[in-house]
């Protein structure tokens, strides 16, 4: 399966072994370098895009720059999902707390496998917060 993984390079939690995720990853680029992306992909050439970002996108984090970057990735997720829905590419995002002992790589891998499931083509534009409910008081999470 041809696949792409666009990660936010601002977030690299120590000790998380992303390489263990058993998908073929052709690309790992910063969301801010998105202009280098081949837009739009040819129909059927790109199955999915998964943004990996932090729950700082909700704006409650102590780092406004990271919050802005993460929020930009959310905007990209929604916009690209709508743009590319007709060409067989799903675009989703996984948001995790920037610093947390609560969420492990296994928790994230479970979501990655779901969004990357070849059978799972009808979920797009989703921002899934994996945070054990920590962000629920933020209105944007609904």
């Amino acid at each position: 399966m041809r696949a792409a993984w666009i990660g936010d390079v601002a977030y690299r939690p120590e000790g998380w072994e992303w390489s263990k995720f058993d998908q073929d990853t052709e690309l790992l680029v910063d969301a801010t370098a998105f202009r280098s992306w081949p837009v739009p992909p040819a129909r059927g050439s790109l199955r999915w895009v998964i943004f990996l970002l932090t729950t700082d996108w909700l704006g409650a984090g102590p780092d406004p720059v990271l919050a802005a970057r993460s929020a930009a990735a959310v905007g990209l997720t929604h916009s690209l999902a709508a743009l590319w829905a007709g060409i067989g590419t799903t675009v989703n995002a996984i948001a995790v707390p920037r610093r947390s002992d609560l969420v492990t790589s296994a928790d994230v891998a479970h979501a990655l496998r779901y969004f990357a499931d070849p059978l799972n083509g009808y979920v797009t534009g989703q921002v899934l917060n994996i945070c054990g409910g920590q962000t629920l008081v933020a209105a944007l999470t609904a």
Partner: protein
Amino acid sequence: MRVAAVTGAGRGIGFAIARMLVRQGTAVVVNDVDGRAAHDAARRLTNTVVVVGDVATEAGARAVVEAAVSEFGGLDVLVANAGFGMMGVEVGDVTAEDWSRVIEGNLTSQFYCVRFAVPVMRRRGGGRIVGISSRAWLGQAGGTPYAAAKGGVVSLMRSLALELAPYGITANSVVPGSIATPALEAMGVGARDALLRAHPMGRFGDPDDVARAVCFLAHPAARRITGQTLYVTGGRNLLLSPGRP
């Protein structure tokens, strides 16, 4: 062995959910208010027990949870799916009886099931609750009671997520868009085509798309995913212009 209860499992989305859970090795309580549909569904599956009843009543909801305990020894997963739509009625024409019936059938039923399921899950050390909402919760002209009920489902799940996190119980909503079920097939061709044009993917969803979302959230590995609203809409909820197909 994990144990699940799926309400409204006689047909459509509920049946697809029950079938996928069974395929993953889960024992399933198959509930439906339609006895024939429930038994037909169970005959097509293994490792199930049928509970015919209306979960919009306390007795009906209690029977579903009690069957999970008596037949399979407990309950790990509750999928609150039972419900019915009400569209095309302007708010001035919605009677008090309509309002109550739709709220009870789509929201109160989920509350009843949760109320009986939570003590069982707490004794088991955790659990997964998945409430089936609808894209209509974002707002539906001509469907105010249904939209309000399905919005209530999202709020119910978020509240449960906060309340039950200390007990290892997660609660999430799955929001289907237009899914190819008998109800959708019953629409006229013109209305169906107009609805299809509102979908960026150019197709309706399949009941298995919803089932996969439920099984993802119901999985033991989804322990840190709670209070989330997972849209299975083919991107329809992303459109800035809602239209009125």
